[in-house]
């Protein structure tokens, strides 16, 4: 029951065991646990950062979408306007062309009519001369009455 030299042996063993526990158990494990703690903290920080980035990206995407919508609406409106313009232009051009054609045709008709009138006039002169010849029974000198006839023709 009394204390013996065993005490010395146990003390030495105790000190050695403390050294071993520190070297083999406490040191590596606390180091590992600290590393794990750091890793977890890093992971959480990264997750936070990721969430933040995601929020930003979502915001930017929303903005972009909004802008794209606006742009497309504008483009559409512009296109519509342009279409109307083009249609109007085409209408105008068609109208002008039509008018031009009509005018051309009218001019041609007029020309034709004039020409026909001239022809008719000339023929009438001839006929009138012929009729007068017949009536008078003699040949009228075309030269002598030319001026008179021409005046007549012009009156018709």
């Amino acid at each position: 029951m009394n204390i013996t030299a065993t005490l010395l042996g146990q003390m030495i063993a105790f000190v050695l065991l403390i050294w071993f526990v520190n070297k083999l158990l406490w040191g590596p494990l606390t180091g590992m646990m600290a590393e794990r703690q750091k890793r977890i903290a890093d992971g959480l920080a990264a997750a936070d950062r990721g969430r933040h980035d995601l929020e930003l990206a979502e915001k930017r995407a929303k903005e972009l979408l909004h802008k794209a919508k606006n742009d497309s609406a504008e483009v559409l409106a512009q296109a519509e306007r342009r279409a109307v313009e083009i249609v109007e232009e085409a209408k105008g051009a068609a109208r002008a062309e039509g008018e031009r054609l009509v005018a051309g045709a009218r001019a041609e008709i007029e020309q034709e009519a004039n020409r026909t009138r001239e022809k008719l006039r000339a023929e009438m002169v001839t006929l009138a001369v012929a009729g007068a010849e017949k009536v008078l029974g003699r040949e009228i000198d075309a030269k002598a009455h030319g001026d008179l006839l021409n005046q007549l023709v012009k009156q018709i």
Partner: protein
Amino acid sequence: MSAAPESSGGGTVEYIQHHLTNLCVGQCDPVTHKATGFWAWHLDTLIVSFTLAALIILASWRLGRRLQTSAPSGFQNVVEAILEFVGGQVRDSFPGHNPLIAPLALTIFLWVFLMNFMDLIPVDLPGFILGLFGVHYFKLVPTTDLSTTFALSLTVFALIVFYSIKVKGPVGYLKMFLFHPFGKFFIPVNVVMTAIEEVAKPLSLGLRLFGNLFAGELVFLLIALIGGTLAVGAVGWLFWFPLQVTLDLGWLIFHLLVITLQAFIFMVLSIVYLGMAHQEH
């Protein structure tokens, strides 16, 4: 269950005495196997405690080789939980920072717990097995040997003195003895009081652990006696043996608490004492 009483000639007192005798080498009485001088070695205490220490070292080494940071499994989880627990105790009770305290506390907790745990091995089993090899005295629980408990507490005491002097300085340490409880007009009283206070630390540490474990061992022995010497004849055996089993189981479960608690108390008190040594007055 009780091979020992027969081999030692029977008798309750002899049975218990036999079980409380260490395997002594050196300055020992050849008849009673008690130590007669300081230079006696309790081989059983040394062998068991060294084996348990080696077990701790081996387990630590094996664990340290395949530590997993991200996915710890089984054993590593248990060790980590103990480490966290001990580390928490050190953080709570120890002011300042000293890298020695936590490994010391962990060592005390693990080693004392394992040595205490030997108390839960059936009292007659190791004696019986070793008796077959001609070893007739073997006290399995190292913490029922005062040499072990005082080895621990004196080491802690040495650290207390060392850190007291280191932190307070030799003069400060001396001043603590001279002026501590009552001021400068009661120097002789102060010296005695402080000396008692300081000596009481290792003494209470060592005796508390020894007392608890020794008493526990004794109760186990008494319970073992129920089926051993009290049971006479088949009828008596039929009555006493179930009683012994029931009592043994009850005490075992209770003692599981005691050994953990004692290891814990030894650890916490060591931390607190060393914390006190680190405080400057």
